């Protein structure tokens, strides 16, 4: 009697289970909804840093696509590596499923990220590549490609006879070095196309002085390529002052209001502009893929655009140059 009753209940339980599982999978087998947590750590959260704000926006767009909340962190000041490390360590303690980080080049970074990795947190490094073994997944602007684009632009501006002066910031800057590599790859196809590479140490005045000296020297050149914004502004200032604007072509990287005005006035021939939105977006997308256990390319490169005076107000490029719709008058 007892045994039989037990059997009935067992049968019923199995039946219920079976029916409901069928029920569940038939009706509700939709795309899974993420309730993952991803921490995004940027180099700066300063609202005035358009670049990082745009990265942030891209990251949030990716998160919204899967209906996920995102935790975006970062130091308020740029170049505050200590603060970023502190934030990173805090984030690791929260045990998110993935961390998307744009790390400062700091010796401590690799060790801390290794710790995160051993805690089972997926890692995606954006913007700046990092020395780490094994390499983390990287989503980054293709700076070498950007350099190549600058080289191509210089070629067409000089109508095939480029003599280029290159102003970089610092031989230790990884981004600038990559840009330089790509640039030289193009220019070295031509004999004597590069008259020299100078380093202005991220100083407008230094760039100004360097170009002033170059102009005073007896090596003529028709193009200056500046690998960072401060160099571009310093060089532009000099070119305007000495009426070289439009005669010596200036090609720069990145965009700011100042550079936009230089583009409009023709002082700046072209700017090679990154797509930080895409970087943020693809960074989070890649992290989501890692969490889902999908295959991911070890390196995702993001292309850059060449912006000139002529194309700067096309709809796409307007969005790149002016990523934010500001309400302030």
């Amino acid at each position, binding site marked *: 009697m007892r045994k039989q009753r037990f059997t009935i209940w067992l049968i019923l339980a199995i039946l219920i289970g079976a029916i409901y599982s069928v029920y569940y999978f038939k009706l*509700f087998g939709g795309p899974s909804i993420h309730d993952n947590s991803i921490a995004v750590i940027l180099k700066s959260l300063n609202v005035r840093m358009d670049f990082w704000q745009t990265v942030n926006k891209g990251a949030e767009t990716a998160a919204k696509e899967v209906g996920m909340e995102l935790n975006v962190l970062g130091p308020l000041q740029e170049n505050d590596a200590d603060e970023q490390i502190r934030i990173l360590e805090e984030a690791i303690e929260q045990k998110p499923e993935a961390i998307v980080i744009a790390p400062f080049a700091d010796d401590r970074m690799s060790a801390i990220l290794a710790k995160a990795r051993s805690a089972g947190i997926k890692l995606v490094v954006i913007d700046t590549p990092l020395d780490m073994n094994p390499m983390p997944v990287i989503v980054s602007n293709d700076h070498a490609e950007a350099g190549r684009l600058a080289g191509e632009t210089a070629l067409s501006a000089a109508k095939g006879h480029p003599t280029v002066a290159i102003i970089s910031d610092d031989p230790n800057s990884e981004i600038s070095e990559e840009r330089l590599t790509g640039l030289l790859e193009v220019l070295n196809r031509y004999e004597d196309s590069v008259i020299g590479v100078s380093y202005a140490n991220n100083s407008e005045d230094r760039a100004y002085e360097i170009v002033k000296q170059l102009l005073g020297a007896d090596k003529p050149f028709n193009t200056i390529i500046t690998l960072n914004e401060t160099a571009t502004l310093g060089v532009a200032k000099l070119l305007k002052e000495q009426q070289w604007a439009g005669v010596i072509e200036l090609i720069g990287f990145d965009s700011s209001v100042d550079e936009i005005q230089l583009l409009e006035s023709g002082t700046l021939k072209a700017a090679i502009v990154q797509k930080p939105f895409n970087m943020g977006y693809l960074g989070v997308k890649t992290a989501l893929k890692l969490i889902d256990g999908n295959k991911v390319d070890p390196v995702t490169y993001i292309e850059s655009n060449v912006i000139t005076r002529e194309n700067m107000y096309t709809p796409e490029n307007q969005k790149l140059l002016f990523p934010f719709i500001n309400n302030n008058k």
Partner: protein
Amino acid sequence: MPRDRIVRIPLFPLKSIQSNISLAFSLLILAAIVLTSLVSYQVSVDAVERNSNGYIEEVIKQVNMNIQSYVDNMENISLLALTNKDVKYYISDNSFISTENRRTYEKRISDLFQAILYTRNDIASIMVFGYNGRFVSDRRITSLNPNAILEEQAWYKTAKSASGKSVISAPHVQNIIQNEYRWVVSLSRELKSTDGIKAEGVFLVDLNLSIINDICSNINLGKKGYLFIVDNNGNIVYHPQQQLIDSKLRTERISDVIQASSGSSFVAKDGDGKRIYSVQDTNFGWKIAGVAYTDDLIASKDELRNSILLYSLFGLTISLLISVWLSHRLSKPIKDLQSDMKQVEKGNFDIQTEIGQMNEIGQLGRSFNLMVSRTKFLMEETIHNQENKRKSELLLLQSQINPHFLYNTLDSIVWMAEQKQHEEVVLMTSALAKLFRASITKDQELVPIRVELEHITNYLLIQKMRYTDELDYVLDIDESILGYKTVKILLQPFVENAIYHGIRNMYGIEDGRITIRGRESNDQIVFEVEDNGLGMTPEQLDKIRINGDENSRNQGIGIRNVNERIKLYFGHEYGIQIRSEIEVGTCVTITIPKLE
């Protein structure tokens, strides 16, 4: 032919009725609940989808109205400029305004524009450009961007070609004012001279794009849903992921949206998931599309499912419990009856099952009770009868070899032999022999009356020889009844009683006389054993009637024994009756059926 054999699975495979009932109930309930929850889920999902479709439509309409109101406002501002005399004068070619006057006109127009601007924070700037080279804005001092060529501006060109109609631009960065780069939507319009023939300038109102951006980005269509706007050339006016579309990281169904008519909706299903596009036209050529993900729309889909699941599980548990209880209640009387039957099986016939309701089971119980009580009665009767039979047989056996009788008779024989009364010895011995032969024949209980008569004759003969003159007897038996059957040793106990209790103690007052009569009466045969002895008091008589002849048991076969044997063999309507009167005598009437 084993192939032909069909294995029948019984409809109710379980052993107990309760299990079967509860299984059947449970399956029915399960089916019903699963069905209803499936249906209600589907219905709710449909309802939610419908509702959310309606909701999206409503939201888009609201957005449309909001945007429309801003555009209308720009339109109104442009009309104001159009009809303003100062503006007309200022840009007209043939007006003779001196440089000093120009400044006052500029100031007045600028003041007007500023006044408008104060009331509206959605307007970024208001400007007028005359074809005569003059321009004025809402700012006191306006410096134009030297690098932005007015004639190349899209809004300027389209306004010129639209000749008097207002034109809404796509969102763009307005760079006409020096050091200002603002995202705006421009409404531009060519201004005509008073006669309406000559074009004299272009009027521009810029709407802060942040207004439209705020309207659109604040719209929530589920977690993932969004809203976007395209103009009729397919250019994106607003899209939250415009940069992705520009970089070809994402595609949008812009052509489908452009082809869709206002108020319609369509469903797209691809790698991004199933989603519904609802499209609305604006009055000025834009299309607003709301995109909602179906799995997101029914954001409560999980919740809905879980709650339905929970409630149905809850209902299921409750109803399963009820079904078990019900089946228990239903099968309980049967079980009780079953256990009572088990008791009967074990031999307990004292059981009476309890009868609850008078339904089928109640009736069954009543029949069972009847059956049990009847069985019990019959069994008791049988046992009783058997017992009686055995007892009377034993007593009969005892009576047959009543030792006192035997000793006394043998004593008499010895005594007669001593007296050399040879004839008497022979007579008595042969009578004793016959008596015994007759009574020892055990093979049959029923004997012809003739045999019984012979038996009683022999008995009386012996007693007569013992008591000589004290005892006299008459045998008056109809010839006709001799062939009928009777139980054996029917009369002897009464004759014996009559001798020992009635006659022996009379001490010669009178001769003892025993009369034995036998005759037919209807279907019956009636014997009478009458004596003229001492008789009995009514108390003695009652004692005999009630207790039988317990006291006289030792002295021979009791009246009760005979009575019981008669009733046992012939039925209750037969038996003995005793009449007795003190000092007069006793008469015993014995009734038996006529039995061939």
